[in-house]
């Protein structure tokens, strides 16, 4: 692993479900220290790409390199152990388990167990509102809080790269701002970010670089501010 290896290098990925292809020759990169966003309409194939990177479905072509190591056929637990954190679409908390248990499970794959207690405190430092509710069942939190728990759970794995799949969907505008600020904060802590979003405005405002996915193909790739200013993007994704 070289010092400045690209954190995530997805190259020419083709994938689908059964015989139905969804992704066609998709290539994206996340460089160290950056926040990258992948925007696209519902059904474009964003979550499918996350599942390929996470090892949850197998690609039919192309490769995934993580921290300079080829990870194309890795299992999800191997990816997590290698430093991938996932905040899945719809949060997917363990609803009947307590907040504490959810966070403990977030650290399940870690080999450096002696650091878990320290990171537990650090993560709770990011989410002070959760501290008093460690014994609460995850399903009884509000939508916004559940999103925080999902992020906190992924951070407990001490990821090098955090994948977030539509973390702002269905949240009130103030909570969306809170999530956006958090993502920047996590990035400043040294975690690289791949943010999947339909909310292009928020995503592009916090990202350094962006990709636009349409019908399973990357149709645009540019600096986030350039995409934000791009008339086509504005028309299709910002409604202006």
């Amino acid at each position, binding site marked *: 692993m070289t010092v400045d290896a690209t954190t995530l290098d997805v190259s020419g990925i083709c994938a689908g479900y059964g015989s139905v292809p969804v992704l066609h020759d998709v290539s994206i990169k996340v460089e160290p220290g950056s926040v990258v966003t992948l925007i696209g309409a519902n059904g474009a194939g964003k979550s499918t790409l996350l599942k390929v990177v996470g090892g949850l479905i197998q690609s039919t072509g192309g490769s995934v390199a993580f921290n300079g190591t080829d990870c194309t056929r890795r*299992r*999800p637990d191997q990816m997590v152990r290698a430093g991938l954190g996932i905040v*899945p679409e719809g949060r997917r908390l*363990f609803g009947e388990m307590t907040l504490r248990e959810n966070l*403990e*499970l977030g650290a399940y794959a870690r080999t450096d167990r002696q650091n878990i207690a320290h990171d537990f405190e650090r993560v709770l430092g990011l989410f002070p509102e959760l501290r008093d509710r460690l014994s609460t069942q995850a399903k009884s939190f509000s939508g916004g809080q559940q999103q925080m728990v999902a992020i906190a759970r992924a951070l407990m*794995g001490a990821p090098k790269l955090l994948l977030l799949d539509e973390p702002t969907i269905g949240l009130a505008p103030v909570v969306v701002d809170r999530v956006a600020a958090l993502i920047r904060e996590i990035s400043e802590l040294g975690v690289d970010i791949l943010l999947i979003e339909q909310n292009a405005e928020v995503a592009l405002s916090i990202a350094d670089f962006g990709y636009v996915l349409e019908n399973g193909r990357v149709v645009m790739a540019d600096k986030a501010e350039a995409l934000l200013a791009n008339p086509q993007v504005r028309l299709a994704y910002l409604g202006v």
Partner: protein
Amino acid sequence: MQTFIQLGATALQIGAVYILFSLGLTLIFGVMRIVNFVHGHIFAVAALIVAYILPPLAAGGLSAPVAYVLASIAGIAVALGLGALLYFFGFRYFQRDLVGSFILSIGFVLLLDGVLLHLFGGAVRGVPEIFPGRVSIAGAQITVQRLFLCAVALVMAGVLYWALGHTRLGKALRAVSYDHEAAMMVGVPYARIAFLGFMIASLLAAIAGVLLAPVTIVSPVIGTDYLIKGFIAVIIGGLGSVPGAILGSLFVASIETFGSYYLDSSYATLAIFGMVIVVLLFWPKGVLGRG
């Protein structure tokens, strides 16, 4: 009152075995989303091994408890080996496939029925008494053997319940049962956890088998009745729910015991199936099952 206590004690003894069965079924369903109809054969193999090697061990001069412990270890080991084979050559490929795993289970049931009959013969075997004597608890008479069975079964259920709540493996098992994809996304190795869940369930069945061997008549088909009752218990309690399995088991055992005494055993069986229908009408996922 005396009769009532005696019946309650009997229900608890039968229920304890159902608990070991239904906990296994519910655990396997939780982690793999399959119903394992060959679970009863794992139990039967453990009981048969004990019945088969205990008499020669005892005849060889070993004291009864020592011979029993050795026979039990052998029985559990063989049953676990069988469980591992069933997993690796079968269930592994049919996870989360109710229909496929059902057909596979039935195939294994037929196969093992034949194999066990061939190896052990159809004749029933009696196992010599290990812990002789009987005790009286609150006026109810219980043989020491049955008391031992009951205690071990309840302790096992308690240990499992505690471990699911407090150990790393237990939390992984619960996470996989709740949402296996989410568990994978936090780094829980799904395949390993599914295998361990299957083997823990097989261990519970094997323990039930060696516990029951000395107090009942052992034959290759011994597992079937317990499988059916254990299955009814988890349907009533809710597939995948541990408290549901325990309560369902005690409930089925109570109906069976009290029903056979006050009515008649065929009515008791009818009552159990009637209860299943009523429960499923009002709680399609079982009383404590998830919606």
